[in-house]
């Protein structure tokens, strides 16, 4: 049997893609399947790769929203191939399409709370790669969490990287980071993928300032500058999804949030010691954040999905 992992951009461009690929590779090895990655970088090639994968594989894992449009038609043409859409779900699709999507806003909400609780200046903010609804799931939820934890916290207007290369322009990240930090913001969510590095460098010039990374633990990348990370466990989603498909009991749609362990903060992961993150200096805050998480899980606190607005 063959498992093919489809990514709309090179996996190493984005940490959560890499994570997903790792998960796919792991589960393929475990279950004795052949494993391949098809990377694209363009909508047309994406379709070509999807079709080539459907021809060849038994299970196709397609990651990110970018496959929403084209997956249903291709899946319909290949009824014996099973598809797993990770991170997003096509609107209407056949029985051979399964989805694993995330409630990113839940974890970002917690990060915002943590930011507000640790902020010394009393001001937090968020920098996103692009001003698109999907990224508001990060930025808006972050600010909402801050307000929830510390009602009189000030929030800076969100800034965006933009330009020719929003997901990989660290220099612009540095500029945005500097501008936001100079304005007195000392906790900043960096939701800009490859541009994040620049945001971290900027904070190096502002003693006491710290950033929140996304997707994986980014603390080692900028020691002493990252407070915590909003982790998106795409590897878990892929592994569980593939196993479920193999055993035949994978539901049509799985949404993964705090409750399912699909989204988390680095600080809330069990057994974390050597994270390199700043949160380790604030065990009291982490306790409070953990309490908020429990409330979110229990439904006592409802986090709004910014994309649904």
């Amino acid at each position: 049997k063959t498992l093919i992992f489809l990514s709309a951009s090179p996996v190493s461009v984005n940490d959560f893609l890499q994570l997903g690929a790792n998960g796919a590779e792991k589960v393929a090895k475990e279950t004795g399947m052949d494993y391949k990655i098809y990377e694209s970088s363009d909508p047309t090639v994406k379709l070509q790769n999807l079709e080539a994968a459907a021809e060849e594989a038994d299970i196709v894992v397609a990651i990110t929203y970018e496959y929403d449009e084209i997956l249903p038609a291709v899946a319909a043409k290949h009824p014996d191939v099973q598809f797993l859409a990770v991170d997003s779900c096509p609107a209407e699709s056949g029985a051979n399409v399964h989805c694993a999507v995330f409630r990113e806003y839940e974890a970002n909400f917690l990060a915002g709370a943590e930011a507000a609780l640790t902020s010394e200046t009393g001001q937090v903010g968020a920098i996103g790669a692009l001003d698109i609804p999907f990224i508001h799931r990060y930025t808006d939820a972050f600010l909402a969490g801050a307000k929830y934890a510390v009602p009189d916290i000030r929030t800076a207007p969100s800034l965006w990287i933009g330009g020719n290369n929003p997901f990989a322009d660290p220099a612009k990240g540095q500029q945005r980071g500097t501008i936001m930090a100079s304005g007195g913001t000392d906790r900043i969510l960096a939701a800009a993928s490859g541009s994040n590095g620049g945001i971290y460098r900027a904070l190096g010039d502002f003693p006491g300032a710290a950033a929140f990374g996304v997707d994986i633990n980014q603390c080692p990348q900028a020691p002493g500058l990252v407070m915590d990370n909003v982790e998106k466990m795409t590897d878990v989603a892929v592994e569980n999804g593939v196993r479920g498909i193999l055993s035949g009991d994978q539901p049509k749609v799985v949404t993964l949030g705090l409750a399912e362990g699909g989204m988390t903060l680095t600080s809330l992961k069990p057994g974390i010691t050597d994270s390199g993150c700043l949160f380790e200096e604030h065990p009291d805050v982490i306790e409070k954040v953990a309490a908020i998480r429990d409330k979110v899980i229990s439904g006592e606190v409802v986090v709004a999905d910014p994309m649904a607005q």
Partner: protein
Amino acid sequence: MSPILLAALAGSLCGRVGIFNIALEGQILVGAFASIAGSFYTGSALLGVLSGILVTALFSLILALGTTRFRGDSIVISVGMNLLASGLTAYLLRVLFDTAGTFSSPEIAEVKRIVIRAINTTPWIGWIFSRQTPITWAAWILTILVTLVMFRMPLGLRMRGVGQNPEAARTLGVNVERLQLWTVVAAGALTGLAGAQLSLGTVGIFAEDMSAGRGWIAVVAVMLARNHPAWAAFVCLVFAMADTASVQLQAQGLPNQLTDAVPYVITLAALVMGSLRNRKRRQAALA
């Protein structure tokens, strides 16, 4: 803005000797890559910057030899170089560092920034003057230097002559091709420094296509300034202010898709206004 400024200096040098260089974008990218790689392998920021300068100077030999020895068209060569830079850096990123997208590593030694404590956190002034790398300060010194060389030194006189009338320069014993070649290579070194500032100076990270249009802005500055280095620097300054202002506009809630276009729209507006002023003059020229 110093990467753009350095690239604009390079562009005006090339323009003065009659070579239209629109490969600045690619040259910056090569410089950014080479200096990161140099810094990574040597562990020294200085060596990293030097390797950025050296490699980009070598890279610019394509344009230098292409337009002089092989009499190719500078636009075609430049477009080819831009593509080559983009492809080659991405390819080498995979081959050398086994990664795609961005490359960062603790082993990359960054250029230290000069922090002026007193104004460090002051808005505007702090953003502008504090936390600048030596490269940025060098860029301004180089602007003065290039302007001096261009208008106060025999070398500059020769360069201006070569751009205006290569045939005349040749009869006076100036080796036109050699002067053009070295000017383009020197300009390549400047863009290498620009790339070093972009990657090593600002963030210590290399990202694919991280030049992100900065070379094109430099081209525009050079054209607006008609190859005058000091004016090009002025245009860069205006552009940088427009860019910073556009971030402020973002903070006011304007979507980034619109604010991104602000510097270009301002440039266009400046062009239109400038030519409206000169319009009468031109009407006398060929209809």
